[in-house]
């Protein structure tokens, strides 16, 4: 059931992306993306709810669940940030990333078909996993906004202003504001995740997974600190957010 719901969510996300792409044609309007994303979000909630019931804890027990949770977090932040800041095109850029996460999650063997329910739950461990993955939703969306800024920046610098993509991209300042807010929110949420990690029951002092998580946290804090303390050029801010996000995905290799 959870897998089927995830398939439906993926179809909806792809549909939202296609709908968003139609906004590029003359006079096109991006009206369906948001609705598709809302419906996909509801399906994702269903997936996570079912998996949570099966596991008896936060559904982050295998790569399929982590990817589904990540996709959910990404859509959650899109729904919070996109419409509020009139970043309609963000949906078009977000949809493929969410779709890829979910397609991988439904591949055979990625999501455990018969998960074993746990007997005892460590609340700090649950908090660590949930807050950490949630922060990745914010970081992923920040990276998408950063990519959009880099595209816009290149077009403005090269004075290539004739394309539909250029016309539909949000203003540079809106994108930069979203990058900073999402990165700051993500860093804040990850801070809670890291603190929870120190409070949860662990086998060793600092596992490789926790070291990678702390490195990610420090890297994002450095970006935020640089921005607020001495300023950073918009291009460097965007590049840093993208690079740190890609590198931070390595954390999952140690899960």
């Amino acid at each position, binding site marked *: 059931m959870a897998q089927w719901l995830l398939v439906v969510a993926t179809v909806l996300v792809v549909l939202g992306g296609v709908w968003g792409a139609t906004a590029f044609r*003359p*006079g096109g309007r991006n009206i369906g993306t948001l609705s598709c994303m809302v419906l996909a979000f509801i399906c994702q909630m269903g997936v996570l709810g079912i998996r949570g019931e099966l596991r008896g804890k936060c559904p982050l027990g295998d790569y399929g669940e982590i990817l589904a949770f990540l996709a959910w977090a990404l859509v959650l932040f899109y729904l919070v940030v996109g419409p509020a800041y009139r970043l309609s095109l963000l949906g078009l850029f977000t949809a493929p990333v969410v779709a890829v996460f979910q397609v991988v999650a439904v591949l055979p063997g990625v999501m455990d078909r018969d998960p074993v329910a746990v007997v005892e739950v460590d609340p700090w461990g649950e908090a660590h996993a949930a807050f950490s993955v949630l922060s990745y939703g914010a970081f992923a969306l920040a990276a998408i906004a950063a990519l959009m800024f880099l595209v*816009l920046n290149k077009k*403005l*610098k090269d*004075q290539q*202003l*004739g394309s539909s993509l*250029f*016309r539909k*991209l*949000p*203003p*540079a*300042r*809106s994108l930069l504001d979203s990058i900073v807010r999402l990165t700051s929110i993500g860093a804040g949420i990850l801070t809670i995740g890291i603190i929870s990690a120190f409070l949860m029951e662990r086998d060793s002092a600092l596992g490789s997974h926790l070291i990678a998580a702390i490195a990610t946290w420090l890297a994002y804090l450095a970006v935020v600190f640089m921005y607020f303390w*001495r*300023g*950073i*050029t*918009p*291009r*460097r801010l965007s590049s840093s957010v993208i690079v740190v996000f890609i590198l931070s995905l390595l954390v999952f290799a140690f899960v």
Partner: protein
Amino acid sequence: MGILCLGLNHQTAPVEIREIFAVSESRLGEHSGRLCEVEGIEESVVLSTCNRTEYYAAAVDCGVASDHLREFLQSQAGSRLRVEHLYEKQQLEAARHLCRVVSGIDSMVLGETEIFGQVKKAYQAALEKGATARSLNQLFQKAFGVGKKVRTNTSIQQGQTSVGSVAVDLAEKIFGHLRDSKVMVIGAGEISRMTAQSLLSRGARSIFVTNRSYERAEELANELNGESVRFDQWHEVLQEVDVVISSTGAPHAVMKREHVEAVRRKRRYRPLFAIDIAVPRDIEVEVGDIEEVYLYDIDALKEIAMEGKGQRADQIKLCERIIDQELIESGLFGS
């Protein structure tokens, strides 16, 4: 029943003639009703905007209706109204004209959207007054449908065609709304004044004006409700502003890379939009190499404006194709 359109607009009549025939929104219905009393006219809609007044009528004999309508108009304006001020369209031509008006391709600002609402109000007023029946109802409903289709399937309203409007569009692409943006004008030339005015009209928060002649800077600053800055102090303001418009008559660069480099940290690397309208150029090309600076000179802005004009011309052709196709498919108005 035939369709007739008699009108005058910004292309055919000067403002002193247009204002004679201008009708306030609240009296459109009443005027449409009065027009139905003119001999030979069965139905009517009066459309009046700042750029045009048009009389749409349905009549059994359009020739007779036209003669009486002209007499009626002449009685209002006297000898000041000349034949060349008026244009007349009948049947399919009248329908095509209304579709062009509703679509914004007959407007002074090509592709403007306001006209659609104005035509709707004029029609609604006539409808409520009982001045329309089958013929004009069909005509206006068709025109609204065509107008919507044109706006959905073309980008007639996109692309700017003047240096000032290109600059304003770019500023909005960089900063979004301009209400938090500060502008500095270096050199009090005409184009920079107009560009600064456009930025202000779109909400730019404050303007600094600097010029070699401080009196001229003060004059323009007063006109723009801004602040004058002495020419040897402009670089001190640079850290505050988001947009720089430069158009001095200096034979050498006024703004150099070192000026911007000196304030980058203080500006916290915020984007800076530099518009160089001067020839020879006022802003060193190397300024554009700085990451957060978007430098556009007069040639770049003109090229974009030319592209806008080219795009508009293509879009007009597309709009007209849609209008013709829709009218032919309707089989109405003698098509």
